[in-house]
């Protein structure tokens, strides 16, 4: 049987505020455990939450970026459940009156077509702390530094039909939130976490199948793998005459296995009610207008600008503009290295390959745009050959030096472009290659091209790898072509 896949996403985006959503504690990542957990975050008796203006500003910016309705009045509710990393015994969140209403995000499909993914709503809430289950004498350790970090949870309609579409959407959303600066986008630190709702139905059927939810995926790759695996699992179950059970699943990216989280039925009864500690938040038109005025460039607009201002192809512009960090790298590189096409080639070639092989985000790229720009200048002015440039790039990446010119000197990578010096090398090398010269001169044009390569090896060797290959080529032809 043929199956349709239906996917909806819930995305938790950590907002890049300085402080928590309801307290003045720092949200900086990586602090010593519990040093950023104040009395409010710990739910000490008698404390009261005070809402953070920046969290609302960021939520409004997101709403504007996805062309959503923005609620003038939003209400916080309590979602009640017990877990040790949730000190209050409830999560303060929004349900009936979220800050951001229906909106949409347009994604580009593999065949170039656009597809609109509808956003159901987005609401503000607080993050929980972290539980560490390593052995503390049979106990669990709790770090509440993350407790109270502002999150915006974005909920899509079930509009995606494949893992590819879901990943395209996730990447696009990542590009939007990092471009408008409301999230650092650092997925390995949990700044963006995806819950994936998957169901399948026989092709042509209108009614949705029973869905499962796979929680807390923190990389695009894991998300793709988890969806493929869940679709396969559901097809197997249904083909064997079984039924899909609505459940929450966990995917372990390391073992590439998913498993059902055994949750009691009662656990889903959250008994929401409006939080008596917080008054309704009212956003006025001036607040929204101010956010609109200060909304940074969105990925789609940036892509168009990259094409017109730098003459990039649609494909290159798309890749370079989708994320804020990569776009910034590109613009910095061009600023220092001039040649946009060469900058694009290096960023999408060498640099992206290194990022991928080390599973790094562009935001954590060890080479700066200024460095790459300096490197490109040295390629353009003939100082570096392409192989020399690669060596300099490696040196920058590995932190061997921070300055391109001193790396070139230290490693002796300066290309020799002095024609007289190169001629001398050519003469010396050719003196021992009489046989090859005769062979070359008897060959036709097509063969000659091939045979020319046979001289390049010895020439590069004789010049210690520093001879300008283009000039060697010219000199050779001048001397051999008769």
């Amino acid at each position, binding site marked *: 049987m043929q199956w349709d896949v239906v996917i909806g996403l819930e995305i938790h985006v950590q907002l890049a*505020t*300085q*402080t928590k959503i309801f*307290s*003045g*504690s*720092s949200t900086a990542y990586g602090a*010593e*455990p*519990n*040093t*950023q*957990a*104040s*009395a409010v975050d*710990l739910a*000490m008796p008698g404390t009261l939450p*005070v*809402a*953070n*203006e*920046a*969290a*609302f500003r960021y939520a409004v910016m997101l709403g504007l970026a996805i062309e959503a309705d923005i609620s003038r009045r939003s*209400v916080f509710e309590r979602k*009640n459940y*017990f*877990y*040790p990393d949730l000190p209050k015994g409830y999560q303060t969140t929004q349900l009936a*009156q979220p800050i951001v209403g229906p909106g949409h995000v347009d994604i580009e499909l593999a065949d170039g077509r656009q597809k609109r993914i509808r956003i159901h709503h987005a609401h503000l809430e607080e993050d929980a702390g972290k*539980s*560490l*289950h390593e052995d*503390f*004498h*049979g*106990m*669990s*350790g*709790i*770090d*509440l530094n993350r407790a109270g970090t502002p999150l915006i949870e974005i909920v899509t309609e079930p509009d995606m039909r494949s893992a590819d579409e879901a990943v395209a959407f996730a990447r696009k959303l990542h590009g939007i939130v990092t471009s408008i600066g409301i999230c650092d986008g650092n997925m390995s630190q949990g700044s963006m976490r995806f819950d994936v709702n998957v169901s399948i139905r026989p092709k042509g059927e209108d009614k949705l199948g029973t869905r499962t939810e796979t929680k807390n995926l923190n990389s695009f790759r894991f998300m793709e793998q988890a969806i493929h695996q869940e679709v396969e699992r559901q097809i197997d179950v249904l083909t064997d005459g079984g039924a899909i059970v609505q459940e929450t699943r*966990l995917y372990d990216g390391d073992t590439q296995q998913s498993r059902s*989280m055994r949750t009691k039925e*009662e656990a889903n*009864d959250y*008994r929401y009610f*409006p939080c*008596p500690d*917080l*008054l*309704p*938040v*009212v956003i006025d038109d001036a607040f929204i207008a101010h956010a609109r005025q200060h909304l940074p460039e969105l990925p789609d607009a940036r892509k168009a600008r990259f094409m017109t201002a730098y003459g990039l192809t649609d494909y290159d512009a798309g890749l370079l503009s989708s994320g804020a960090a990569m776009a910034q790298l590109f613009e910095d590189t061009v600023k220092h290295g001039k040649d946009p096409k060469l900058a694009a080639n290096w960023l999408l070639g060498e640099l992206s390959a290194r990022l991928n092989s080390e599973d790094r985000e562009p935001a954590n790229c060890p080479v700066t745009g200024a460095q790459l720009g300096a490197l490109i200048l040295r390629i353009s002015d003939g100082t570096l050959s392409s192989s020399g440039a690669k060596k300099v790039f490696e040196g920058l990446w590995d932190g061997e030096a921070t300055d391109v010119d001193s790396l070139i000197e230290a490693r002796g990578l300066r290309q020799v472009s002095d024609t007289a010096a190169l001629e001398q090398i050519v003469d010396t090398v050719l003196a021992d290659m009489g046989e090859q010269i005769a062979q070359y001169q008897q060959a036709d044009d097509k063969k000659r091209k091939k045979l020319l390569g046979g001289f390049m090896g010895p020439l590069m060797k004789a010049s210690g790898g520093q001879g300008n290959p283009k000039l060697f080529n010219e000199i050779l032809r001048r001397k051999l072509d008769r």
Partner: protein
Amino acid sequence: MTISRQDIEKVALLARIRVDDQEVTALEQDLGNILGLVDQLQAADTEATEPMAHPLDAVQRLRPDVVSESDQRAAFQAIAPATENGLYLVPRVIE
């Protein structure tokens, strides 16, 4: 509107409050009375009334996004039952 023993037992479980049979009987009576009052309120015509999220007719004041809390871990952990390496220790939880 009435409340059943099962309702009370379920709510008690969700709230992690232990109640014995005798207490359930007493609660059935008490909560039943409260729900009776709610029934009376339900009879009021609220067609033209907007639902309230809060009894005060006021809006939330927002706080500027500036760090105002300092590290007071030592003070908080002095009253915790168990800590180690800066972590609060709790009975082991496994998902």
